[in-house]
């Protein structure tokens, strides 16, 4: 067997090398590798199992029925609750407080007049609308068109004294919420064609 010894040794070395390779491979390659393809199969479940931050809008209805009712038939019904109020899952699950930006800035992100916006989208030049007052002083966020100051009709736009027709004992009296207001305040909220 003398002439064979070197061959047997060589074969043994090769076999050992191959064996070591496969042993290392079985240790280093993650268990779920190759389960679905050339990747670690467990990773799919890792991604799918991440926690959500935003809930589904219909969930708000369970507790906030009156707001939901008002909102769902308003012009803002396409705007999800969480769009303005932020992610709500921690609020639903753990009672975390939900914030809201009450300044003009939040409304401006959508409604400030921009040339790039589609022309049919309601936009307004904020510099000349409402002064510095917060938008929600006149426009309800949950019913922006329904609860907003009625505009001044074109034919009476030039009138100087609104209270001539709208004062007490007048043709079209003011609602109780307007008690005590003077004529110079009307145009702060009620717009004519100048918007």
């Amino acid at each position, binding site marked *: *067997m003398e*002439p*064979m010894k070197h*061959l047997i040794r060589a*074969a043994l070395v090769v*076999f050992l090398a*191959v064996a070591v390779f*496969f042993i290392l491979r*079985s240790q280093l390659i993650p*268990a*779920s*590798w*190759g*389960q*679905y*393809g*050339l*990747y*670690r*199969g*467990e*990773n*799919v*479940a890792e*991604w*799918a*199992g*991440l*926690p*959500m*931050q*935003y809930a*589904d*809008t219909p969930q708000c209805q369970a507790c906030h029925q009156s707001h939901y009712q008002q909102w769902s038939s308003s012009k*803002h019904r*396409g*705007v*999800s609750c*969480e*769009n303005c109020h*932020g*992610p709500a899952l921690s609020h639903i699950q753990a009672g975390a407080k939900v914030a809201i930006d009450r300044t003009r800035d939040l409304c*401006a*992100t*959508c409604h*400030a007049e*921009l*040339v*790039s*916006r*589609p022309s049919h*989208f309601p936009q307004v030049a*904020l510099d000349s609308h409402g002064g510095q007052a917060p938008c929600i002083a006149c426009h309800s966020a949950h019913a922006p068109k329904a609860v907003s100051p009625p505009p001044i009709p074109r034919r009476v736009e030039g009138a100087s004294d609104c209270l001539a027709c709208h004062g007490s004992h007048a043709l079209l009296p003011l609602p109780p919420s307007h008690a005590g207001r003077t004529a110079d305040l009307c145009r702060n909220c009620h717009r004519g064609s100048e918007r």
Partner: protein
Amino acid sequence: MNLSRRDLIKKGGLILLGVLVFEGLTNHRRSQSQGLASPVAEGGPYDWGKHYWGFVVDTNKCIGCGRCVRACKLENRVPLEPEHHRTWVERYVITLEGEAYVDSPQGGINGFAGEAVNVKYQNLKIRNSFFVPKLCNQCDNPPCVQVCPVAATYRTKDGIILVDQQRCIGCRYCIQACPYGARYLLPSRPGVGPLGEGGVVDKCTWCYHRITRGVPPACVEACPVKARAFGDLRTPESPVRQILAEARINVLKPDLGTRPKVYYVGLDLEVR
């Protein structure tokens, strides 16, 4: 004993064959016997074999409010510093002479209103102007998957491209390869990555953790004007299929052969 060359080749070949058979058998055994109960594998509550997801963006509707960008950041913990985006909104301003200006201030996260971002367009004679939201296209022929040297990124059965952040080595080859700029490097994130320090690649996953629970991605939920739509390409009643049935659609960079799955309605010539 004297071994002839022929004998050596025959015997050596048999041994080699034996080793290969052994290897083949052990491989087969490993992947079958593990049978990991992944919730997104066949048989779990969500069956990824039953869905193939698609996305539609309607640039005619987008008002550039940027609430989608904000929602994505909050939903997916996308870093604010350095500034990265999984989805972003670009504004195109095209003058009468045909010159196009593109900007995306902080990805559009604060919208495009305000003096600071509009002052440069004040004196231009604008022909038209519009917004284009962008996100990962989850291509059917993804260059990012092709170039990964460690096979850390892959396509799921339901068509989403995911990154295995435990395997990613942060070489950034995929970030370079993506023609849409959809990927970015997570600079540091404790517990993530092979060294537990971040430095791995991240990207939009179409909110995989939401869609596998039957809820639309955060950006689709946030959009107030329905400029984004998401749905199952296999279900004719899905929002995406309904739009695809009626609209004229386009995709970004169709000439690159990536076969993206974000379909655009109203994609202007100027959009790259």
